[in-house]
């Protein structure tokens, strides 16, 4: 397994290099001058001053040299500094990543539990009214934009019913408590989870239907096992293997979705940092985030494959 993981990482190296080139080119396409953005509009624009600052930032060098410097720094763990605050980008990401992970983790938990349960029920009761209802729910789930869903959730549960706060991670001015934090987490996590729930439900249903008539399921029933044991130990154990891949693919989607959800709920994670950086044209932060998101995908793919081979002994990567 260790050699497999190592080999996968080595194979990804050219892809990672390609990614850095794409990210660097993107950052250079960004309109707006970083130097002009830093100088307040009141200050008279001194050409000399602008030149000087450009020189300090290395913006007057040829592009390939800028890329080389940037890549060199990157390898030393230096992702550059925010044009806005001067903060190191790496530290900005590290400081905000726990909030994003909390949101993603909680959403994943909700969507996997709900999706697998509903999908299994739907398959066991195939062609019943409940099955049709859940299928319809599944379709709606994948068709509703997550930001619209967030607005509805805020409208109903935060503004009308006043059960949950509209935004933020904790109540401002109060000492941190987990209860308060979870109270804030609930709505954004739900908004992020519902779309995934629908996806997991559809795949679980299809996957359960595929094994439900297999011989070993009939054997288990013939042995007189209760329906619950048959479902949990025989059907699900096999049906969930392909679902692992689907969950793995959706880690990426969850990560991308957190960008919009964090912005709407003012959840102080890296997604909100990214959108702020986009509106301020803070390209080191944008580059840092895009690069980071690509790493998240690579790691998620690797994790998926590893889990898959662990869950299905028929598949072994040599």
């Amino acid at each position: 397994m260790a050699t497999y993981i190592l080999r996968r990482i080595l194979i990804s190296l050219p892809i990672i290099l390609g990614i850095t080139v794409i990210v660097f080119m993107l950052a250079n396409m960004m309109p707006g001058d970083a130097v002009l953005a830093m100088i307040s509009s009141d200050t008279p624009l001194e050409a000399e001053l602008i030149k000087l600052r450009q020189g300090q930032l290395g913006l007057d060098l040829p592009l390939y040299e800028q890329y080389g410097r940037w890549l060199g720094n990157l390898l030393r763990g230096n992702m550059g500094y925010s044009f806005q605050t001067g903060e190191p980008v790496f530290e900005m990401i590290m400081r905000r990543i726990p909030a994003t992970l909390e949101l993603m983790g909680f959403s994943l938990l909700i969507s996997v539990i709900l999706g697998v349960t509903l999908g299994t029920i739907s398959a066991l009761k195939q062609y019943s009214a409940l099955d049709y209802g859940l299928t319809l729910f599944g379709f709606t789930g994948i068709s509703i934009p997550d930001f619209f869903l967030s607005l509805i959730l805020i409208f109903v549960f935060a503004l009308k019913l006043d059960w949950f706060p509209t935004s933020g991670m904790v109540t401002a001015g109060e000492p941190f408590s987990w209860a308060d934090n979870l109270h804030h987490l609930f709505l954004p996590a739900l908004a992020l989870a519902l779309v995934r729930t629908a996806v997991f439900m559809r795949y679980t249903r299809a996957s359960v239907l595929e094994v439900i008539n297999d011989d070993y399921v009939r054997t288990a029933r013939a042995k007189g096992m209760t329906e619950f044991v048959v479902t949990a130990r025989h059907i699900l154990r096999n049906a969930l293997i392909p679902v692992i891949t689907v969950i793995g693919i959706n880690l990426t989607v969850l990560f991308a979705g957190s960008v919009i959800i964090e912005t709407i709920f003012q959840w102080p994670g890296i997604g909100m940092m990214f959108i702020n950086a986009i509106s301020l044209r803070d390209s080191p932060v944008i580059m840092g985030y895009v690069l980071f998101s690509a790493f998240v995908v690579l790691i998620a793919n690797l994790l998926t494959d590893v889990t898959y081979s662990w869950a299905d002994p028929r598949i072994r990567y040599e």
Partner: protein
Amino acid sequence: MTATAPAITFATTKPESLWGKARKRFFRHKLAMFGLVTLSLLIFVSVAAPLLTPYSPVELDLRAIRQPPSAAHWLGTDGTGRDVLTRVLYAGRISLSVGLVSVSISMLIGIIIGSIAGYAGGKVDMILMRVTDMFMTFPSLVIIITVAAAMGPSVYNAMLVIGLLTWPSIARLVRGQFLTLREQQFVRAARSIGVSSWEITFKHIFPNTISSIAVAITFGVANAILLEASLSFLGLGVQAPTPSWGNMLRDAQSLNILEGMPWMWLPPGLMIALAVLSINFIGDGLRDALDPRSML
């Protein structure tokens, strides 16, 4: 010696063609029919918008700001006195065309790259697939937001960005199909009698990939509409005063409007959901009709 062939009478009724069967399966699919009717209706009211409403989607009417739904304004008016229903109808034109145009772009790129990789195989395939992998390594929304910000927000850039960044999955699909198809007997037979590569690709392999491509196009349009809505919601897509379903929802970012004036943001949001839902239903029907083997 001449042998007289025994007289065989053929059944006079023609056997049903594959396409005929598929069409029947599709039209029996209730959800797909619902989707088709709803989508046609949406397209009709968007196209016929100028005939259906007396108001302009962009002109301000400062005497009628933030009015709740009434007989004159069925869905009320927005912060600058524009009729919400009118804007929703006109926005349909923008949102649906962004969906169609961007999917056309991504299909074109995806099919070309996928078929070259799948047909050529070997080194060409390797290189093209590594490039595809590279593009797939970015979460699509993240890279789309970044490029849209870099190119500057506009309708055309939204179409372009979504089209240019959603082709990798199509390329993979087409390549996979080509890889299986090119080893099949009928392709080998064609090659053995000297049919050119060009002709094999277009006359023999490509027609067999059309079913999967049709399904992918349908889901692609749904996805593109959602992406455009997200972009415009973030202010990186269609720009005011041109209405799109996504940018109309921007108003709801103010808690005042969100809480007190739901007529401004509920209709465009529901339209996105309805349009995407209809297209997903159609896609599901197409998949059942064209590719009965697939489970999902």
